């Protein structure tokens, strides 16, 4: 009897703790945001007054519709591009015999830590109609008069953002394909389906929840992206939502948090619609359990002669998405100022920028801080994500869906809003964590919890109920089952999630800028300051150093892994 009570207690405690933590993390910024939308700014002797003017301003402004259209086009276009590229690569890597597969994970993981400003600038240097390297080369080769590519366009924006996120799409989808039972595709092949039909009729429908999940995440990132619209959009005359929010927060006096929040609310409505569509589309997928606890040896489709084509696609993708920008950054990092890449200029090569970077106050400590924070934050996010998904997917409680929505909701919060909300809250509370690493941790968990939840959802959906039922039959409580059965099975597919959440944390900027303190500086802040104060060349040097460091780490991990297996 007491054992049963023990189970009920631990289950109850588990539920309560998870729910409370999630509610605290997700509802605080939301409520703060909504609260702000109906107030005028509070400043110098003027108290904040209740007003609906903010909503009036936003909805009566004729430009709002145009801005919404631009934002949506940008977000959708780049997401689709990222998924097509990343997804194609993921399938080729996990499902075919193409040579060089084993390097793809490594190669894709590395550029993930590059901040947007660096890759965007690199693409300007490649595709600018005036100075772009690609344009110059193509014009010379084909004797063209005019540059064929103009980066200052919606197409250019979509291209940059799409390529920037393609590695992320790759890692997500590769993990999904890996976890899938390869029998299902082989059965299709044996039944007469060629590669294309097998992909279209079996692989894609089965992986739809994961793909949609990814799509949603990419759309949100596209909607809240600020760098690409600033560097490319403004010269191109393309305004997006984030520019409005940014203006309201930084350029107005007094800081019009109310207006910024109202714009944010509109953004959130759009993403909320996306979220609702996602839920509708994935209703049926609870029956797509394909992991049955039998280990899969990866089985690869023999594509025969086509593997030369797929290898070619590999090379193309890696060059475009990864190598080209890196080459530019590398070149910029070894030159004292930005100059064209040609033989004559090689004499200017110097390591001066690297020395300057290492001398720059705070660089080393911010690297250490960032590493530490990203590991801890990712751990928390993965575990919390699994806990939430477990409650939602496996325990099938009535209010489960709500928890899922709560956990996914922070996706819709623009980064700046999270920063402002947390700063305001913790300045008021007597807990002295403002300006320390703890508040940064909370910010990261708030921002990226949805990634953990969605990834855990996809993983857990695939775990067959039998595994857990077997545990239940042997008398294991909910918590026990979670820890001893579900967790180990799901953990391997969550390793990918852990890694890319780490890179998201490393790259995170808008929420961090308001919360960091002198002891808790992180690399994104560091880079931002250097960007404002120093030069692109030095920032590139920092970027290259980050890449080298991460590559070394990844290679080390790989050696460690192969030794174990």
């Amino acid at each position, binding site marked *: 009897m007491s054992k049963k009570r023990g189970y009920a207690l631990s289950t109850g405690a588990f539920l309560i703790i998870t729910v409370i933590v999630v509610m605290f993390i997700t509802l605080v910024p939301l409520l703060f945001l909504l609260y702000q939308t109906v107030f005028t700014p509070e400043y110098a002797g003027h108290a904040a007054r209740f007003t609906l003017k903010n909503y009036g301003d936003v909805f009566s402004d004729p430009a709002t519709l145009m801005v919404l259209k631009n934002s949506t086009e940008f977000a959708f276009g780049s997401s689709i591009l990222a998924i097509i590229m990343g997804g194609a690569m993921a399938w080729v890597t996990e499902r075919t015999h193409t040579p060089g597969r084993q390097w793809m994970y490594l190669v894709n993981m590395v550029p993930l830590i590059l901040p947007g400003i660096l890759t965007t600038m690199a693409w300007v240097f490649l595709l600018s109609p005036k100075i772009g390297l690609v344009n110059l080369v193509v014009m010379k080769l084909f004797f063209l008069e005019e540059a064929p590519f103009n980066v200052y366009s919606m197409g250019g924006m979509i291209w940059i953002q799409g390529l920037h996120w393609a590695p992320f799409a790759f890692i997500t989808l590769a993990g999904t394909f890996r976890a899938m*039972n390869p*029998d*299902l595709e*082989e*059965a*299709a*092949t*044996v*039944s*007469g*389906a*060629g590669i294309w*039909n097998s992909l279209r*009729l*079996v692989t894609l*429908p*089965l992986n739809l929840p994961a793909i949609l999940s990814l799509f949603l995440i990419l759309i949100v990132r596209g909607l809240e992206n600020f760098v690409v619209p600033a560097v490319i959009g403004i010269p191109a005359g393309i305004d997006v939502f984030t520019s409005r929010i940014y203006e309201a927060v930084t350029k107005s006096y007094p800081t019009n948090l109310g207006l910024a929040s109202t714009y944010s609310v509109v953004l959130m409505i759009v993403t909320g619609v996306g979220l609702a569509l996602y839920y509708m589309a994935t209703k*049926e997928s609870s*029956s*797509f*359990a*394909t992991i*049955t606890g*039998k280990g899969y040896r990866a*089985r690869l489709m*023999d594509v*025969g002669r086509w593997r030369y084509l797929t290898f070619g696609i590999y090379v193309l993708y890696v060059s475009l998405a990864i190598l080209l920008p890196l080459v530019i950054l590398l070149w910029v990092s070894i030159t004292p100022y930005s100059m064209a890449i040609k033989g004559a200029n090689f004499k200017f090569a110097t390591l001066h920028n690297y020395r300057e970077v290492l001398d720059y106050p705070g660089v080393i400590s911010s690297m250490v801080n960032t590493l530490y924070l990203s590991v801890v934050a990712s751990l928390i996010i993965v575990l919390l994500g699994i806990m939430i998904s477990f409650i939602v997917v496996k325990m099938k409680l009535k209010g489960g869906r709500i928890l899922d929505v709560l956990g996914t909701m922070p996706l819709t919060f623009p980064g700046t809003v999270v920063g402002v909300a947390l700063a305001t809250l913790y300045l008021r509370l007597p807990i002295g964590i403002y300006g320390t690493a703890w508040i940064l941790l909370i910010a990261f968990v708030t921002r990226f919890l949805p990634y953990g939840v969605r990834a855990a959802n996809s993983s857990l959906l695939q775990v067959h109920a039998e595994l857990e039922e077997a545990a239940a039959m042997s008398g294991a409580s909910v918590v026990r089952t979670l820890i001893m059965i579900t967790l180990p099975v799901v953990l391997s597919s969550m390793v990918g999630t852990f890694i890319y959440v780490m890179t998201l944390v490393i790259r995170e900027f808008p929420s961090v800028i308001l919360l960091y303190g002198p002891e808790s500086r992180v690399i994104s802040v560091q880079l931002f300051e250097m960007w404002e104060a120093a030069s692109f060349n030095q920032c590139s040097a920092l970027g290259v150093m980050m890449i080298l460091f991460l590559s070394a780490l990844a290679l080390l991990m790989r050696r460690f892994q*192969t030794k174990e297996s």
Partner: protein
Amino acid sequence: MLKLVNLYKEFKTDETEVKAVNQISFDVPEGKFFTLLGPSGCGKTTTLRCIAGLERPSAGRIYIDEQMVSGGDYFMPPDKRNIGMVFQSYAIWPHMDVFANVAFPLRVGKTGYSKKEIEEKVLYALHTVQLDGLEKRSATKLSGGQQQRLALARALVRQPKLLLLDEPLSNLDAALREHMRVELRQLQQRLGITTVYVTHDQLEALALSDLIAVMHDGVIEQLGSPQEIYQKPASKFIAGFIGNTNWLEGKVKSCEPDKSVTVETIMGDVSSLVTNPCKAGDKVMLSIRPEAIEVTMTAPQNGNFSQARVESAMFLGEYIDCFLRIGEQTLRAKTHPQLLLQPGNQVYVKILAEYCVALAS
């Protein structure tokens, strides 16, 4: 119908080379049920997958219905081979209903079937496996046995020339397994379809097959009918693998021209069958099936017999599983259930020559 010539497949990993299938050749006549039997890792699944085209052989040739599907540089991809295959996990597509699962091969193939034709064929296939009436059901809502039959229906809907089955019964419970065994055999005989079956369960192999190839470490150790394999195993491994057996050491006394041999053992002289050529003085191991041992309470009239003491006896309903001790040796025997054996009883043990095989030591 199916012909393999010197099939060779190796897998290269970072450190080692694994010869999964090492020079295998056999012929499967049309309409026969052919089983690849062996323990895990013996290469039977790899062989099956080579036949299906899911693995590319390193060397050797495969012919299906006189046509070469793999050999030298030529390799026909699996989707062109027009075979039916049932996977161990069934590989039912969860996002389609029963009808769609079975109709899939008809819809994706080169031959365009009309909607009516598809419907006819699917319903017929479902009827063949006794899944009528379940067309609209979601594939995930089927029981294990139903899923297995669905997989079978899908494999048969195109009426292929060759049916491949990869341990299809291993996921079922014991009762269902037995039932399906019978059904499967009957179905195969009714359809007359050439079948290659892979299993590690020797009982299944013996029950279902026309021909069995016992595989071990990538080679076929013996190929023959179930009776041959069971009664005249060609090696120690086969004898041990197929059913239970007792081992008795001995020395050949004489070799008779009718392929029987007299072996000197601690039980006295024992006559036995022999599968390999031998001469007097050879050291052999006698493989004695439990059912080859006659146990009586009173001394038999003729033949070689010994006295033994009962160590343990388990009543299993159909027979008694008992352990008998003769000197240093323990023999396991199966006796008639009505024999009331108790531990400590003194009994008489006679070995029936036609069920013993002498194998090289």
